């Protein structure tokens, strides 16, 4: 990943995130790390049931695993430039299952300088191996004046 700086950034610039292979083991590890043992992520029998109109058809990855992967992409990009990951908003649009491979991408949407700092807005997308969006969102990174 190329180290960047605020002056050189332009709308449309892309940020490549890490590819992540999802497995039952990776989901279980996330349960242990987060202490989130919701049966959505563990229990095949439980997931045979319906959730309102939705039937997931099997266990699903934690949405916050997606969030952490996006956050890693942003900090890997921002920290070497002395920038700060200040905000991340996400929506989960499609479930992620064991066997999926997901990858976040960022696209610089705009940048703005204020008296005391400089700000970059980034559109964020996570796609699976079928090029389907599984999460979308927006992030803000600050490039402090110092």
């Amino acid at each position, binding site marked *: 990943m190329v180290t960047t700086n605020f002056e050189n950034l332009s709308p449309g610039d892309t940020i490549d995130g890490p590819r992540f292979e999802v497995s039952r083991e990776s989901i279980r590890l996330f349960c242990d790390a987060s202490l989130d043992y919701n049966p959505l992520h563990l229990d095949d029998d439980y997931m045979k049931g319906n959730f309102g109109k939705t039937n997931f058809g099997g266990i699903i990855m934690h949405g916050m695993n997606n969030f952490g992967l996006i*956050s890693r992409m942003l900090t890997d990009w921002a920290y070497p430039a002395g920038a700060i990951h200040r905000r991340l908003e*996400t929506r989960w649009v499609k479930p992620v299952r064991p066997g999926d491979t997901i990858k976040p991408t960022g696209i610089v949407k705009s940048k703005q300088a204020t008296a005391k700092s400089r700000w970059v807005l980034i559109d964020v997308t996570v796609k699976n191996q079928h090029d389907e969006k599984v999460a979308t969102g927006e992030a803000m990174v600050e490039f402090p004046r110092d």
Partner: protein
Amino acid sequence: MPGRRRYRGLIAPPSIHILLMFSCTPADDWMRSPGTVNAGQSWNYNIPARPNDVIRLEARALDKFIKRERLFVVHDNVFFNQRDEVICSGRGWTIRPQ
């Protein structure tokens, strides 16, 4: 590296709130209700957590609403350090079992 100079020591990644959320809530918290689905999250990061910090969480459910026949709950969460400085704050939307 500019970032190395900025922080003058080790910091936790911003996403540490993911790992702290359940450890800062009691075992009978509504978040742990089986079948609760995370629909979206929005987090703002103020100052980083550091080694030896003592972190606490203030969390509350703000509202609930029905959308597309699903019951959504809106909740907000603020993590503080031992000096009552805000580490990060977030708003979440979950779909709850009905």
